[in-house]
């Protein structure tokens, strides 16, 4: 499974990688803002995108709108400190498949990824801990 990590914090991307590696995920594409992600995502063709909301240049919602105009199927999980209900509703309406509020535990992130991949009909092995 190839996962794209979109977050302006390298520390957060590393934390997410450390959560995903025990699941057997080794293939990562990293982007530091929405614009950077848009420039890579169609060539990289990831199986899953973890997307931060607040980023410079182009935020997560800006990326999502542009991405969903061309791709309706690749699962996107919004991973953000934004926890207000209306924010979650806005993100779901814009096309995210799931939502993780930071800070999270590794178990919570893995659970949401499994849930998302299962709903998307992705191969179970891709979301099974190694």
């Amino acid at each position, binding site marked *: 499974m190839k996962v794209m990590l979109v977050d302006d*914090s*390298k*520390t957060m991307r590393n*934390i997410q990688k450390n959560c995903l590696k025990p699941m057997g995920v080794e293939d990562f594409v990293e982007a530091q803002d929405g614009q950077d992600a848009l420039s890579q995502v169609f060539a990289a063709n990831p199986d899953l995108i973890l997307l931060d909301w*607040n980023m410079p240049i182009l935020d997560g919602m800006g990326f999502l709108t542009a991405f969903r105009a061309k791709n309706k199927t690749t699962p996107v999980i919004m991973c953000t400190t934004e*926890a*207000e209900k209306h924010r979650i509703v806005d993100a779901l309406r814009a096309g995210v498949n799931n939502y993780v*509020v930071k*800070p999270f*535990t590794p178990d919570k992130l893995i659970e949401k990824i499994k849930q998302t991949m299962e709903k998307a009909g992705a191969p179970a092995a891709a979301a099974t801990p190694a």
Partner: protein
Amino acid sequence: MAAGGPGGLEEWSRRMANIDNSRFENAYADSIKHLFATMLASTVRVAPPAAHEPRKSRFDVSCVIGVSGEVTGLMVLGMDGLTARKLISRLAGAPMTLEHEDFIDAAGELANLIAGNAKGRFGIDGVSISCPSVIVNPGHMIFRPSGMRTVVIACESEDGPFSVEVTLQQSAAGAARKQPAASAAAR
């Protein structure tokens, strides 16, 4: 200007004492506990918000995040160098020195996790937080806007002491919007 007269120190103190920011300030205390219970997998003792004593506030590392919208002000996460090194290594999952190329990013993310989660606990919409600014300099002080109350939340972690200082006020527009709902509830 007389100390007790209009605009004097006593009046100012009375005005500050009457401002009830406790739900916002407590949101930061709860957010710190949540961060330690989740991503840091570590214990922390968090004291109730207390009056800020500027002369005692000196840090080696501080992370500043602005708050705007319905509530305005700032949050300062302040630490000594040793605590910062240990705490930020814990978050990053790798040893970090103050000179490490990723130290500033990790310190900023630590503050962002506290401020972002606290904002979600305010119970009101229309609040934004800024990107973090990180200052690394032994014994520095942070000066805040005058006329705003600051509280300090003293914390004791496995990695050493640190504090979160919160300077907040509800914006005039936010307070005005709150008024009709409070009146309706009273009826």
